[in-house]
């Protein structure tokens, strides 16, 4: 799949933002006054900035408001609704914490759960796609949630939760790679099932067009494979290992913040791989046998 920068930025930034809101809402920590102002501002900047980035990949953004209508069947619609709900409910607690120095735990907790729901919905958008076997797994939303809470814990200064989150994320990320590398063959889709031709060997003889098209640009992206293993090491180091080492050395706020920044840089690489490595079965029609 095409690793569009807007979608990578959206999922990483909004994941971190909603992770922060989930932590702050659950009272870990429950700041008031200026501390609350800084933490909630950062959380909203990341979450809303991510949502804004996602609007850049729409080809026809004037209809974006209609995305709130199809919650009954569409995970993308559910994500949009949950995101707005999480931002609004958390805002009540944020406003009260900043300006009245009063934490409102009910709004906090509901906002926290809605934030977690938003991240899970983001993961489900990818997990539901049977046409992308690598994503089509319950591990996908779990991976998104672990990444989101890790970033949230680092940026809100919760060292114990951050270590726990990073270890969870590491385990899930490794599981996703092990599971994902075998997912396409396991899906059973081959050039033979794609064309309905039963033969010992079926392969593309001539493509329908000599140039590119939307399908090839969007779904048959292949650059990721060449450096995939190197990038996996970089992603694991930056997103998990270096932040853990920083936390081991110091759990001061600047150290946590630094660990958070390094983690987010690693997450950009990991998320880039998430898209670049994912094979769509439509590639079978273009001679890409996974």
């Amino acid at each position, binding site marked *: 799949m095409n690793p569009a920068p807007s979608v990578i930025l959206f999922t990483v930034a909004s994941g971190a933002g909603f992770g922060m809101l989930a932590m702050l809402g659950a009272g870990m920590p429950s700041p008031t006054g200026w501390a609350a102002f800084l933490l909630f501002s950062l959380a909203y900047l990341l979450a809303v900035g991510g949502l804004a980035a996602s609007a850049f990949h729409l*080809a*026809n953004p004037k209809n974006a408001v209609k*995305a709130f209508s199809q919650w009954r069947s569409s995970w993308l619609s559910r994500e949009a609704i949950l995101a707005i709900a999480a931002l609004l409910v958390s805002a009540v607690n944020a406003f009260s914490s900043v300006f009245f120095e009063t934490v409102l735990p009910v709004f906090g907790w509901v906002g926290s759960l809605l934030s977690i729901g938003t991240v899970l919905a983001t993961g489900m958008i990818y997990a539901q796609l049977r046409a992308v076997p690598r994503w089509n797994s319950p591990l996908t939303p779990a991976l998104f949630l672990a990444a989101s809470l890790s970033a949230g814990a680092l940026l809100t200064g919760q060292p114990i939760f951050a270590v726990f989150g990073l270890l969870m994320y590491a385990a899930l990320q490794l599981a996703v790679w092990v599971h994902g590398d075998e997912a396409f063959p396991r899906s059973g889709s081959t050039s033979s099932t794609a*064309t309905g031709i039963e033969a010992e*060997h079926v392969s593309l003889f001539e493509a329908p067009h000599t140039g590119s*098209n939307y399908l090839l640009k969007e779904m048959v992206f292949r650059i990721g494979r060449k450096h995939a293993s190197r990038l996996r090491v970089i992603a694991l180091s930056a997103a998990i290992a270096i932040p853990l080492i920083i936390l081991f050395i110091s759990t001061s706020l600047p150290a946590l913040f630094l660990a958070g920044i390094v983690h987010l840089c690693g997450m950009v690489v990991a998320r880039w791989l998430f898209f670049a490595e994912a094979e769509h079965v439509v590639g079978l029609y273009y001679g890409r046998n996974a």
Partner: protein
Amino acid sequence: MTDLPQNTGQKLGLVIDLDTCVGCHACVVACKGWNTENYGAPLSDQDPYGADPSGTFLNRVHSFEAYFDDAPAQIIHFPRSCLHCEDAPCVTVCPTGASYKREEDGIVLVNEADCMGCGLCAWACPYGAREMDAKAGVMKKCTLCVDRIYNENLQEVDRVPACVRTCPAGARHFGDLGDPESDVSKLVSERGGVDLMPEQQTRPVNKYLPPRPKDSKAVMHGDSQLEPVATEATGLIAWVDRMLEKLP
């Protein structure tokens, strides 16, 4: 709502005969010609006469080669377009309600006035049936020529999809696949029509008729046909053979 209808009255769709398709791409051209000036936004081209042309098509013809253990290899032309699936994953993922499957005849359509161009439906489709138009920014797909098949301004013979009407080989058939007595349903049962990628659980309405069995290798290269008819040369050939042997 982008929920799928429980049951559609009719199941209109295509039956494509991979045995008869000659790979001429006439259906591709007829489809583009009709659909660029009718339902919804035109099917735009980018850099059409330049170095890197691309464009929106609702129907494309691939050519595959197939190797068999017991039969000679074959080239099989494979037209690919929307299969109007009963469990269409492109419809349920749509967040705006632009994608829908019609209850009366099962045709899967995009209401372009609602489409925000997120492209998720194209990701959800295993068959590459949806292409985002780069000019209009909305998703385009096969409409089964919904503006032809019910169009009373056209002669009756023309009230079929443009690809079916134009196919010079008679490889494309249009009809109600929900009616077991329809010509297309009979054709599917006679010829063993198949679903594409059944493991994707989309329950396609369109069916593909696999190529009929061709000559086997045993018939073509059987030992009896290739036995040498003479082992010893005689006459003029034998003399030429002896003379050539004598040359240094």
